[in-house]
């Protein structure tokens, strides 16, 4: 079937959407879950703002700040991988995907050290409502980082522009969640 659209005719909204529609359904679903979690966190905070502020003081803001820089840079590398894939440069695509994944591993190491430190100080999910949300939201996010690294590896093997774009979109979603999660959990007083 031939395309009857004239060159001046704007694209249908579904045709404008970059990447794969199902990936966007997944991205929106994930954003809704994390969005609800963060709103619930701030909702519960209303009942005990002093307790939440005190609990927050035990967090490593510097480590989390470094992790923000790590993740947004990793997202930049993933976006460069998409650009290279669109130009048919498979080796460069794989190199940028590997760099993005490596920074994902750095993020997990810093996050793991943070969890380890909390465990050493006897801080667990039951210590305070703040930590229940902290472990739930940052732990769930870290699980997405692990999934993202696996996905970037898989799209690196099947290195086609469409698959690289879809894999990178998942990685950007992980990035997007973190830039909202980091200030709400670690910074807001």
């Amino acid at each position: 079937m031939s395309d009857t659209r004239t060159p001046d005719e704007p694209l249908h909204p579904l045709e404008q959407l970059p990447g794969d529609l199902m990936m966007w359904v997944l991205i929106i679903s994930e954003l809704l879950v994390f969005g609800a979690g963060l709103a619930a966190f701030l909702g519960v905070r209303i009942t005990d703002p002093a307790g939440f502020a005190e609990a927050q003081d035990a967090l490593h803001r510097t480590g989390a700040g470094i992790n923000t820089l790590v993740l947004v840079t990793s997202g930049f590398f993933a976006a460069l991988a998409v650009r290279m894939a669109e130009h048919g440069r498979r080796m460069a695509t794989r190199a940028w995907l590997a760099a993005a994944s490596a920074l994902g591993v750095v993020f997990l190491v810093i996050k793991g050290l943070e969890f380890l430190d909390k465990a050493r100080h006897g801080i667990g999910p039951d210590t305070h409502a703040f930590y229940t949300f902290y472990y739930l939201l940052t732990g769930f996010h870290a699980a997405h980082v692990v999934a993202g690294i696996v996905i970037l590896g898989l799209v690196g093997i099947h290195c086609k522009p469409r698959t690289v774009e879809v894999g990178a979109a998942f990685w950007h979603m992980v990035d997007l969640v973190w830039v909202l999660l980091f200030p709400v959990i670690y910074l807001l007083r």
Partner: protein
Amino acid sequence: MGWLSDPLIRAWAWLIGLSAASTVLAAAVSAGWLAGTGVTIGGAAILTLAWAKAGVILSRYLGLAAAPFWHRGFSIVLALYAILLLALYLIG
């Protein structure tokens, strides 16, 4: 500075700058440089910076800048969500 004409590099530079600004603001609050209403204004500024960062990721990293219909929709929902978070923060 020709490399700054690349929208991807510009987006990354913005994200780094906005993240650094958030961290500086949080450090100012933690160090007690801001007090009373200043803490609340600092918190509201941190949320505003988070909203700006999310907007950059959506438009540049996820490529919605090239899809005006979706960009508008996501921007409206994101703005409403940021207002919700801000309201919850200010109530607390």
